[in-house]
């Protein structure tokens, strides 16, 4: 499923666009950066409540499809600018992580 379809289905706010045509394979949820480094796969969407600068680096290094910030956590302008510069999709949801994961799981499962 393409990122832009997920954005629409889940009503995500786009903070930094990235590649919205990119195919999203699956998703990974964690707030521990090393855990994401170890466990996330390229093409995954990453769901987290971490909003600092390093999320952009982790997403870039792991070649993730994008980062979804849950619970309405607003990153700083610098983080958004960095995501734009690196071509990383940075998305925002008002939903808490658990609800967001549940909905995305349904959406990603449906296409299988």
């Amino acid at each position: 499923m393409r990122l832009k379809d997920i954005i629409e289905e889940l009503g995500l706010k786009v903070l930094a666009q990235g590649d919205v045509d990119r195919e999203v394979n699956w998703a990974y949820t964690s707030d521990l950066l090393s855990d994401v480094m170890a466990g996330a796969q390229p093409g995954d969407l990453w769901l987290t409540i971490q909003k600092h600068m390093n999320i952009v680096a982790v997403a870039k290094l792991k070649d993730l499809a994008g980062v979804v910030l849950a619970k309405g956590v607003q990153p700083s302008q610098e983080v958004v600018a960095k995501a734009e510069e690196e071509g990383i999709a940075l998305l925002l949801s008002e939903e808490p992580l658990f609800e967001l994961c549940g909905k995305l799981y349904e959406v990603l499962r449906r296409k299988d």
Partner: protein
Amino acid sequence: MERQVFSYSVVRTGSFEDVGLISTEIKKKLEELGVERNIVRRVSIICFEAEMNISLYAERGGNIFVAVEPDKVDIYVEDDGPGIEDLEKAMQPGYSTAPLWVHELGFGAGMGLPNMEKNSDVFEITSELGKGTKIHSVVFRNKDAA
């Protein structure tokens, strides 16, 4: 391809804002050199964790050297930080000495060194209390390269 060596200084700024900049830079360099994607991914993880460790613990920062050769990528990490008291423990997943505020940022999961070892074909670490830590990691390019 000739041997290509890159060296980077990890400067400690007191915040973690910059962690990942050097590994991102290294990743771009390796991609430019046409290193296999899977190898780039593994080297990126190793360098990211190294950067994170230096930023977390080594007061005067440290250095990362990356040498790209036709058959392998060597990564050398060195700092003159506090050293690791119990290497055996530090290599166990989940063992962490990071303070709480670091954990809250999502760092200090106790997975840094295990992640580095897992992604290396050769992993050597030496550490001396009060002197610093040295790591040599090798990722072979012919092995499950994709």
